[in-house]
């Protein structure tokens, strides 16, 4: 059988639908993991030992369990105790929580790299702790963390393929179906390769732009 991409033409719509679903899931997952990560990083760098412990437990737990197990627990386990969430929402939540654990670590490192003198200036001026975090610490930490955060987000895109295991026909799920109907796995998965590479390339491009834009005037402290 010769390599022939044209056999996929009738299935392009199906694959495009899958790609769109992947993009949507990734969009929410990136947002969600950023929020989870920021909250956890705030807790991890707080003066409150209780908060620090909670943050430590969160990152420790979710980075040490295979993502597919977390996903199955949410999707197949929770209904047992009466919690039904649809596959798409479950996927986004699971990705957000797992990605958030990695984002938290990256942001924590960024926060610790902020010049303590700058934070002291904010404190002395009378800003509350929350305002200092929101207006001074987080924006400066983000500038240092954009790139490593980008790696976390790229990993999130790659991990989103696992959502196909909970009946979600995102890109990988759609490709599996197309492959089993056409019996042309080589072509199908070749396209899959290219599309994932394209998605992550777009993400890294966006991260680079954001990094350059945020650090325009940050030559030195």
């Amino acid at each position, binding site marked *: 059988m010769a390599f022939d991409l044209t056999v996929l033409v009738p299935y392009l719509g199906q694959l495009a639908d899958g790609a769109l679903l992947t993009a949507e899931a990734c969009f929410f997952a990136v947002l969600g993991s950023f929020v989870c990560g920021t909250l956890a990083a705030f807790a991890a760098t707080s003066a409150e030992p209780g908060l620090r412990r909670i943050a430590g437990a969160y990152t420790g737990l979710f980075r040490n369990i295979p993502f597919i197990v977390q996903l199955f627990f949410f999707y197949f386990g929770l209904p047992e105790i009466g919690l039904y969430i649809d596959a798409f929402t479950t996927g986004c939540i699971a990705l957000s929580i797992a990605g958030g654990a990695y984002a938290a670590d990256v942001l924590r490192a960024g926060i610790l790299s902020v010049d303590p003198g700058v934070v002291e200036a904010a404190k*002395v001026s009378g800003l509350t702790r929350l*305002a200092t975090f929101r207006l001074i610490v987080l924006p400066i930490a983000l500038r240092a963390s954009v790139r490593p955060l980008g790696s976390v987000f790229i990993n999130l895109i790659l991990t989103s393929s696992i959502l196909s295991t909970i009946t979600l026909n995102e890109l990988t799920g759609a490709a599996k179906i197309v492959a089993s109907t056409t019996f042309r796995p080589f072509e199908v998965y070749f396209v899959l390769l290219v599309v994932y590479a394209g998605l992550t390339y777009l993400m890294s491009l966006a991260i680079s732009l954001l990094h350059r834009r*945020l650090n325009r005037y940050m030559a030195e402290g």
Partner: protein
Amino acid sequence: MIAIEKVGKNFGSTTVLDGVELAIAPGEVVSILGASGSGKSTLIRCINGLETVDAGRITVDGFDVAEKAGLAEARRRSATVFQLFNLYPHMTALENVMLAPTMVLKRPRAEVEAEARALLERVGLAARAEAYPAQLSGGQRQRVGICRALAMKPRYLLLDEVTSALDPEMTAEVLAILAQLAREGTTMLFVTHEIEFARRISTRVVFLEKGRIEVNLPTAEFFSEAGGLANPRIARFLSRMAAPEAAAPLSPAPTDAHEAS
């Protein structure tokens, strides 16, 4: 009035402040001199609550900085200028100056911006209002730092070695502004190594030695033969600081074989 009553501070087993008593009344410019490590900066950091005292009490207009509410009020009444500027690197000069008045005092932006621009103009930085700290020279950054402090309309200005990180030319820029503030009657607590300048602008000079106040005298008296200079420690300190060429020649490196082994 800033009242420092029998204040003690330790870092581990090191005593940094030891029974410091000092009062700064409105309108005074009090310079604090002393060798590095004498506790000068720590004293300022205790007043603005960046460090907590281990003994004694500090009040700003009667508000105890050891209490949460007291500290918040004390911080509204005083403003600090730092040795290493500590500007917010992600904000323009103007935004640096405007942040606290808008966020802490909740004053309207337009009004704050007009005042901030006027402050920057006063220190010769009107044209640099939109520049980021990284685009400014050290002297310019410290002038922004002073504007940021003044924007809060503090009753007390705490200056922590504000020219130590600057070359002589930039130091002159910054000192000129401080001299002007002193003439206008701004109350200042001025931790410094600039002895000549302290002599010109202060109403009182305090000499700190190993965490204790060695001398606390009106400026003229401090620099007189019968006053501060009668204290041999101060006389030695002043002669070394003011005239480095008069300092003792470098002693030869120890060559003692016993010590080396």
